[in-house]
């Protein structure tokens, strides 16, 4: 199994989720994070002065899927989350050695 970890724009989250739901995915875990990559931050204003904020709000979506589903899911995320401007985010793929479903104590592939 693989864990897909996508960092996307907060305002894109709903669309991504809807697209994934249509596709059918086993589950997801969502975290509010901040970050930056090439997008080096924006400038905000505090009491009349501009200052740089170099960490922007992002949503981290984690989905663990069977190895065969990775591409499908990744493509869907990219398609929906893309705007073409800097700050669209990244997707990382990790290997998952084992999965357990707490409710049933199942483990391995069927537990995803």
């Amino acid at each position, binding site marked *: 199994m693989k864990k897909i970890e996508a960092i996307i*724009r*907060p*305002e894109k989250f*709903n669309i991504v989720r809807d697209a994934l739901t249509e596709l059918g995915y086993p589950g997801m875990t969502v975290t509010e994070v901040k970050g930056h990559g090439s997008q080096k931050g*924006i*400038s*905000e*204003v*505090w009491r009349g002065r*501009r200052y740089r904020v170099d960490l922007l709000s992002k949503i981290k979506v984690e989905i663990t899927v069977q190895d065969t589903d990775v591409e499908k899911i990744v493509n869907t995320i990219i398609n929906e989350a893309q705007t073409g401007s800097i700050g669209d985010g990244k997707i990382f793929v990790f290997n998952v050695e084992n999965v357990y479903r707490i409710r049933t104590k199942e483990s391995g592939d069927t537990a995803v």
Partner: protein
Amino acid sequence: MCLSLGWGFFLFNQVFAGDPGGANTYTESIQGLKFSVNFAWTLLSAFLVFNMQAGFTFLGAGFVQKKNTLNYLSMSFVDFCVGALVFWLIGFGLMFGGSGLAPGLSWGNRFIGYSGFLLIGDSYDVSTAALWMFQIMFAATSCTIVTGAVAERFKFHAHIIYSIFLCAVLYPVFGHWMWGKGWLELLPFGVGARDFAGSGLVHGIGGLTAFIAAWMVGPRYGKYNPDGSSNVIHGHNLLYIVIGTLTLIFGWFGFNAGSTLAVTELRVSIIAVNTLLAAASGAVTLLYLSFRITKKSDIIMTCNGALAGCVAITASGAYVPPWAAIIIGIIASLITRISLYLIETKLKIDDPVGAISVHGANGLWGLLSVGVFSDGTYGGVKGLIVGSGWQLLAQFISCTTLIAWCFSASFLFFFVLKRTFGLRVPVNAERSGIDVYEHGTGCYPGV
């Protein structure tokens, strides 16, 4: 207002030159003391009404999404500031000129006033200032009501522009008809149309303008699906909603009981009781109605019910007995429930805080309730329950006029504004949050 009863405590028939120091108006006599007591009452009530701005701020902030909170706060605060300047410059003169309620307000006719601008000359007077102080709070309230309905997508500076329009023209003109010895106040039915503390004038104008504004700016991104069904876009803080409601009721006591402008009108105590009972009955009604429907004790509906009761009793609080206040509150809360449904589902107008249903619909109901429940014990106002239909006719005429004036004037205004300045922030800004786009920071920076 009591003023409209012709009993105004500012009895200036003799002195119509301004008395800015107050030494001529106050004398060491019963008459002088009466002035002082009523000044104290009027000013302290005005301060309480001012505090409703904090209430609106809390309430609206709770109803909007986190990313648009600061924008709501800013609109609500700035429209007050801009409104105050405009009302000082123009609005007050248009509204009260010719009413003769205080020095410097001599010129005006039944349709429009034209004296009292800038509080200079004869209107540089302690009584005129007291009246102004109370009235600006009402104008500003009317303005702030609109804010909630257009929140989360309206351009900040477009909001300021219509605030100017509302405080300079829209509100004062109708206000003159109703409270400035205008034609509605002097209608030959019943005692003339009566809107005690401004159900129609303040909340009605606010709510109906909100209707037009929310309709013309369109719903928030994602509120309606292609098939016409609507989604829930929930707010971010219910503590703010509850605190906002409590703060509003606190201010409302000043709003209603203060509207006699005179505590020598002892009726104030019954007005206060009526306000409280209408709020309580409205709240409890919607609590249990919602509970029947969703099986949850829905505190937002409860708050809406309380406010609906307050809005409706605003016109009639002075004229009806306590038991009637309870009925008025119950009906108001039902109207709110139905209106919320119709506005969202049938008319497909997106109103994040429910301003149209709470203030607009009940502004009208408040006006009518005067014609129904007034028992003749105060101000000679007699409604259906004591067997007279004439007052209801007067109230009905004022309702129709309100709708006609408010819809036509604000439609025209927003139409032009939309074509010129534009009403709406870019969709990208809306999606990622107006706060950073308009104000350069979120409400909770660093979060």
